[in-house]
């Protein structure tokens, strides 16, 4: 298969994926025990209110008609109004999603900035004390729940040392980054641990590979070999990991945003559950799944660009 054909096939896969995501979210929303309308209105609903909401949600039509209407709504960006905020769900998500994306992006950046150099230190000192120390620290990081790490950082750096704000988001880009500093470290910690672990193993694997022996035999200096050959190959593995882990990062963002009162989609999700704001929950689940499948696609494309073996 040529690279072009591989690319087209990979792009075409996204269509059935989106359709399946749509079906899953639709089914999920219909699983509400009892009646969705009653769940939304609670005890307060009069018969007239129930009838009006049932009609406005289209729940009086057949299940197939409902599904077609749902797909039309998704395609045209109409996903209903938030019951709590009384504005279109799409507008609400469009306001909040950039916050979560900035948080996740910063978390990935921090994690890579810490994990990549430490992975090299660990791999080049394999099974000596720097390696054991780095691995022990990250092992503890992997075993620490996000909300606990967040609370500790909040207590030490925000409440006691007053170096960072206790929560919120600020108004300018610099204020955003300042406010998201502790949350991003919190969110990035376990990801850094995973990257470190995998990168260390990848470097150890590459160091012993034949082409590195060959490069050394050609007389290339150690640092050149490390940068040009080892780093490049180890990075391919890391890019894959970022793509695979984007889902758990978004899940972690839900908790991080709740701990630090960050106004992103994660906090919106938790708030919506307690407000029984089902249109928001449905739309967010849909939006995040679409986001993840796009991230998978992007990962494959970057991998193809980095690794000439893919798609050949």
């Amino acid at each position, binding site marked *: 298969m040529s690279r072009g054909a591989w690319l087209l096939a990979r792009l075409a896969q996204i269509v059935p994926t989106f359709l*399946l995501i749509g079906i899953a979210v639709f089914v999920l929303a219909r699983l509400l025990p009892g009646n969705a309308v009653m769940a939304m209105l609670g005890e307060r609903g009069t018969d007239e209110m129930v009838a009006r909401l049932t009609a406005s949600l289209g729940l009086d039509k057949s299940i197939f008609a409902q599904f077609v209407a749902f797909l039309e709504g998704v395609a045209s960006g109409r996903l209903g109004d938030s019951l709590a905020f009384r504005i279109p769900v799409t507008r609400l998500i469009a306001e909040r999603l950039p916050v979560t994306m900035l948080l996740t992006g910063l978390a990935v950046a921090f994690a890579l900035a810490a994990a990549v150099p430490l992975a090299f230190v660990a791999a080049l000192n394999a099974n000596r004390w720097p390696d054991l120390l780095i691995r022990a620290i990250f092992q503890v990081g992997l*075993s620490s729940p996000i909300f606990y790490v967040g609370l500790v950082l909040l207590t030490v750096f925000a409440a006691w040392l007053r170096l960072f704000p206790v929560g919120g988001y600020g108004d300018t880009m610099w204020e955003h980054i300042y406010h998201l500093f502790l949350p991003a470290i919190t969110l990035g910690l376990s990801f850094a641990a995973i990257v470190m672990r995998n990168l260390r193993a990848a470097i150890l694997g590459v160091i012993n590979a034949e082409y590195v022996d060959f490069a050394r035999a050609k007389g290339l200096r150690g640092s050149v070999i490390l940068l040009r050959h080892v780093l490049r190959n180890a990075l391919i593995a890391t890019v894959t990991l970022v793509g695979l882990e984007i889902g758990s990062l978004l899940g972690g963002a839900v908790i991080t945003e709740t701990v630090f009162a960050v106004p992103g989609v994660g906090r919106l999700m938790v708030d919506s559950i307690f407000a029984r704001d089902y249109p928001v929950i449905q739309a967010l689940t849909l939006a995040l*799944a679409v986001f993840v499948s796009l991230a998978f696609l992007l990962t494959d494309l970057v991998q193809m660009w980095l690794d000439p073996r893919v798609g050949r």
Partner: protein
Amino acid sequence: MKRPPTPLLGGLAILGLMVAFAVAPDVFSPYDPLAFDFSALLAPPSWAHPFGTDQFGRDLLSRSISAAAIDLQIAVFATFFPGTLGALLGLLIGWYGGLADAVIGRLMDLVATFPFLVLVIAIVAILGPGLANMYVAITIVGWVPYARLMRSEAMVQKNGEYVAACKVLGYSTPRILFRHILPNAIRPVLVYAVTAMALAILLGSSLGYLGLGAQPPTAEWGVLIADGKNFFTTAPWIALFPGTVIVIAGLGFSLTGDGLADLLEVKR
């Protein structure tokens, strides 16, 4: 078989202690975990209360110990239910292949597209908060890695000579599947499950913290931390000690899982 490595022994020691706390909390707890003590409200850690007390004067060491039972239950159930479902499905599609394999395969891809925690939260939102619904949600979302592992193992095993021998002997398919293939294919699944228990503790306590898992007044580590979060400037010990306990429990499971994988030489 190699000699058990030190990290594995350390992990097993932590798990042993956790089981002891879960089985006989009264032996280890200095106080009744639910008893109010109005003479010691928000008391900092001391010899009388090593972990301090909360806003009702409840002893946090005793509460952390009594929570071990719930969190151990979370670790086991949140692994056992998705593990059993996934292993069964994986065994069947690995054996039969064909259409069932294709359909379940697409389903696995689909579930993997949703961020794990987001889908669990969405399902808990629909079913309502609480431990039982949390297990249902984790099972719906969490069976995929077990199914994948079991499927690939079953596909290897079914070409083994002993399976051909079973067929010649005229054994029934269920007998071949459950008496012969399953015991040979289960090892990587079990090792994965131990590591997954570490994640299950983190997941369960996270949902407890968010108010979606165990419900107060049940003592669960995440719930204890949620109780303490409003006091983190004035009485940080309320959240800090139960949090440290979670980290140690998580370490116990992940050290055990990694150690077992090394010992049994299971590739991951």
